[in-house]
C-alpha cells in the first residue's frame, strides 16, 4: 500500500489569503512610491493649502495647511502599516476596507503633492463630486430598476440623451416644468419600448438597448441639425435655481457639498433612499426582486411576471428621464449633439460596481464623480502631467475600481433572460 506517512500535505492559499497578499503588496508599493516620490523628491519644504470654504459661503476662509513632505511620510507610514496587516493576516472584509482606506490616503498625499506651494478648493472639489455623481447615479438607478426584474437596460445612454433633448425643447418652448414632464415621458416611453421588445418580442435585451442608444443619438442629432438649427429659440431652456437649505447650507464644507443645490440633486438623494426602502422593505420590492431572481417562483405564487417587468422597466426609463432633465434643466441650457458623451454607460458601470443596490449606485456615482473632480482640480493645479493624461483619470479610476475592488459581482439570477410561459 502507499505510505501515507511520508506524503507531505500540501497546503495552498485560500482565495481570501491570496487577495489579502495581493492587496498587501499593492499597498506596499504605494507606500514606497509615496515615500519616495511625494516625500523625498519634493523640492523644498512646501505647504499645500486646502480651502474648505467657497467664495460664496457665509463663513469664510477656513483652510487646512499641510506640509507636503511630512504628509507624504505620514501617509507612507499608514500605507506600510496597512500593508503589513494584510500580509500577515486578514479577513475579506478587512482587505476591502484596507484597500479603500489605502487609496483614500494615497489620493490625499497625491493631492498634497500636486498642490505643493499652491492652494486649491477642497470643498469645491467635493461639491463637484456630488454634482458629477448625479447623472451617473440616476443612470445606475435606471439600470437597477430594470435589472432587478431581470431586464438588462443598456439603453440608458439613449434614454438620457433623448430625454435631455426633449427637456431642452419643451423647456425652451413652455417652461421648466414642461421640460421636466417631457423628459419623464420620453424616458418612460423608451423604457416601455425596451420592455416591449424584451418582453413581448423577446428580442435579445442587449440588442434592444443598443438600438435605443443608436436611435436616440441619430434622431436627436437629426432633429438638432434639421430643426434646432433653424429654430434657435427652441434650444435655450431655463434652469432650475439652487435651493439653499436654511442653516444646513451654512455649515462649512458640508453645507456647500450637500445643502446648496438644485431640486434635482435633492431628488436624486431622495430617490436613492426611497428606492432602497422600496426594494428592500416593501411588498413592491419583494415582488420585483423575486421576479428578477426566480420569475417562475414568482409566477407560481400569483405574481404577474410580465406586468412587473413592464412596470419596472418603464420606471427605469423614468429614472433616466430624471437624469436627462437634470442635464438639460439644471446644468446646461442648450442641447448639443451627443451631449451625454457616454455618461449612461458609466451609469451602467456604476450599477454593477454598486452591486445592483441604490446606495451602491450612489457610492459608485460618487467615486466616478470624485475621479472627474480630481481631474479638474489637477488641471487647475498645473501639474507636470499632460492634460490628455488627466482626462483619462475618471476612466482609469473606473477600471481600477471595477477590476481591483469589486471583482466579480453577481447580478440578479435571471438577469437578461426572457420569461417564457409554456
Amino acid at each position, binding site marked *: 500500500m502507499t505510505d501515507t506517512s511520508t506524503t507531505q500535505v500540501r497546503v495552498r492559499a485560500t482565495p481570501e489569503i491570496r487577495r489579502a497578499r495581493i492587496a498587501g503588496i499593492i499597498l506596499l508599493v504605494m507606500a514606497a512610491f509615496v515615500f519616495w516620490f511625494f516625500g523625498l523628491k519634493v523640492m523644498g519644504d512646501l505647504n499645500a493649502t486646502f480651502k474648505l470654504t467657497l467664495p460664496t459661503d457665509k463663513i469664510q476662509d477656513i483652510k487646512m495647511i499641510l506640509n507636503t513632505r511630512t504628509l507624504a511620510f505620514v501617509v507612507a507610514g499608514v500605507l506600510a502599516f496597512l500593508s503589513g496587516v494584510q500580509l500577515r493576516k486578514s479577513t475579506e472584509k478587512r482587505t476591502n476596507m484596507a484597500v479603500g482606506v489605502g487609496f483614500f490616503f494615497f489620493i490625499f498625499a497625491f493631492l498634497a503633492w500636486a498642490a505643493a506651494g499652491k492652494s486649491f478648493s477642497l470643498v469645491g472639489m467635493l461639491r463637484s463630486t456630488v454634482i458629477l455623481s448625479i447623472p451617473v447615479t440616476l443612470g445606475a438607478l435606471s439600470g437597477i430598476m430594470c435589472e432587478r426584474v431581470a431586464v438588462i437596460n443598456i439603453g440608458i445612454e439613449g434614454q438620457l440623451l433623448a430625454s435631455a433633448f426633449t427637456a431642452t425643447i419643451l423647456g425652451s418652448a413652455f417652461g421648466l416644468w414642461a421640460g421636466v414632464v417631457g423628459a419623464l415621458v420620453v424616458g418612460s416611453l423608451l423604457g416601455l419600448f425596451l420592455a416591449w421588445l424584451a418582453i413581448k418580442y423577446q428580442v435579445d435585451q442587449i440588442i434592444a438597448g443598443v438600438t435605443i442608444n*443608436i436611435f436616440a443619438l441619430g434622431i436627436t442629432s437629426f432633429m438638432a441639425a434639421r430643426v434646432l438649427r433653424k429654430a434657435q429659440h427652441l434650444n435655450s431652456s431655463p434652469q432650475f435655481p439652487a435651493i439653499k437649505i436654511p442653516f444646513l447650507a451654512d455649515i462649512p464644507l458640508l453645507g456647500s457639498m450637500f445643502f446648496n443645490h438644485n431640486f434635482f440633486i435633492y431628488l436624486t438623494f431622495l430617490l436613492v433612499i426611497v428606492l432602497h426602502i422600496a426594494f428592500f422593505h416593501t411588498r413592491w420590492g419583494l415582488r420585483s426582486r423575486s421576479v428578477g431572481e426566480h420569475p417562475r417562483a414568482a409566477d407560481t405564487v400569483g405574481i404577474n411576471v410580465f406586468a412587473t417587468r413592464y412596470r419596472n422597466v418603464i420606471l427605469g426609463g423614468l429614472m433616466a428621464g430624471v437624469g436627462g432633465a437634470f442635464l438639460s434643466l439644471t446644468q446646461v441650457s442648450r442641447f448639443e449633439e451627443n451631449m451625454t458623451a457616454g455618461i449612461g454607460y458609466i451609469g451602467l458601470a456604476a450599477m454593477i460596481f454598486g452591486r445592483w443596490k441604490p446606495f451602491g449606485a450612489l457610492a459608485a456615482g460618487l467615486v466616478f464623480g470624485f475621479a472627474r473632480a480630481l481631474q479638474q482640480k489637477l488641471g487647475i493645479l498645473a501639474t507636470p502631467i499632460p492634460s490628455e493624461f488627466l482626462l483619462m483619470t475618471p476612466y482609469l479610476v473606473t477600471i481600477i475600481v471595477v477590476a481591483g475592488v469589486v471583482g*466579480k*459581482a453577481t447580478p440578479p439570477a435571471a438577469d437578461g433572460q426572457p420569461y417564457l410561459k409554456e
Partner: protein
Amino acid sequence: MTESTDTNLTNPEKSPPEKPPSNLFARITGINTGWIRSLLIPTLALLVALIFGAVFVALTDLEALALLKEDFGGGLRLMAEGVGLAYKALFTGAFGSVYGLSETLFAATPLLLTGLAVALGFRAGLFNIGANGQMLIGGMAALWVALHLNLPGFIHIPLAILAAIIGGALWGGISGLLKAITGAHEVITTIMLNFIAFFLVEYLLTVPVFQEAGKINPISEFVPLSARFPQVFGADYRVSIGLLIAVAAAIFVSWLLFRSSWGFEFRAVGFNPTASRFAGMKVQSLLVLVMGFSGALAGIAGANQVLGFSPYQVTSAFAGTIGFDAIALALLGQSHPVGVVWAALLFGALKAGGRAMQASAQIPLDLVVVIQALIIVFIAAPELVRAIFRVKPPEKEKTQITKGWGG
C-alpha cells in the same frame, strides 16, 4: 434544470427529424430557412426602416410644414419631393455610379473588420464595445511602423498591419485579462479603454514621434508611400487593398470559428463556459485569446484608417464611430461572418449614400444612423415586420447572440 426534451426516445415517430440545411446559402450562412425566407425579413426590415426615415424627413421639413397650413396638398407635395430627392440621392450615391459603388465598398471596409471583431466576441459570449479603442491603438501601432521603418512596400505594409494586429490585440487583451483575473465585466472595461485610447492618441499626436514636423496641431506626419495601401481600382476610386484584407479577414474568421479547434473552443465557451471548463478548455485563457483576436481585427481596421486613404495623415478622429457602428453590424449579421459581410455592405452603402444625400438634398447625415437603428429593431424583432406585412413565421428561429452580465 428542466427536462423538457425527453420526447424523442419515447415517441421518436412523433417529432419529425430535423433536416440539416441542404442548400448552399443555408450551409454558408447557417440560416436554414431557404433563400427567399432568409432574405425576406431583412429586405422588409430595410423597407420599413426607410419608410420611417421618410416620415422623419417629411415631418422635419419646416418649409413644407409651414406651407401645410395654407396649402395642404402643396405642403404634402413639397414633403414628398423632399423625401424623393433625398432617397434618390441616397440610392445613387451608394449604387448609382462606379464612384458610388466604390465609396460603398470603401466605407464597408473598416465596418467589416470591426463588425467581425464584435461578432467574434459575441460568438464567445463576450461583448466587445471597445472596437473603437482597439482601432485607435492598432492604428497608432501601424502608424509608428509606417513612419519609423524604412522598408519596401511589400514588406512595409504587412509589417504595419502586423503592428496594428499586435496593438489591437494587446488593447483588447487587457479587457480579456481583467475579466479572466478579476472578473471585471468587459462591457465596462472596453468602454473605459475607448476613452483612454482616445486621449492617449490625442497625446501621442502632439509628440514628435508622430506629429507632423513643424505643425502645432495634433496631426500626424504623412505615411510614406511605401506603407500606403495601394488602391485597387485606380487613383479615382478610394477602394484599397484594405477591402481585400477585410474580406480575407472574413474568410479567416469563418475558418477560425467553424473549422479550427480554437474556434470550436470559442463557440463552446460562448454557449456554455461551465461545460467548456469540464471539457478541459482553459476558459480564462480563452477569454484573453478571444479579446485578443477581436482586438486584432479592430486593430486592422485602425490600420486601414491610417494607411488606407488620402491624405494619409491622421488626427485622433480616425476611428470615428466605426467601432460603435460595428455593434449594430454584428447584431445585424447575426454574428456570422457571412452575415457581417452583408451588413457591412449595407451600412457602407448607407454611409456613402448618406453623404450624397447631404450634398444634394441637404439632409443631415444623422438620418442614416436613425435608419440603421430601425433596421436592427426590425431584424431583431421579426414579428414586428411580420405583423406589418402579414408574413407567416418560419418553424424555428432563435439565435442567442449576447449574454447578460453573468458570463
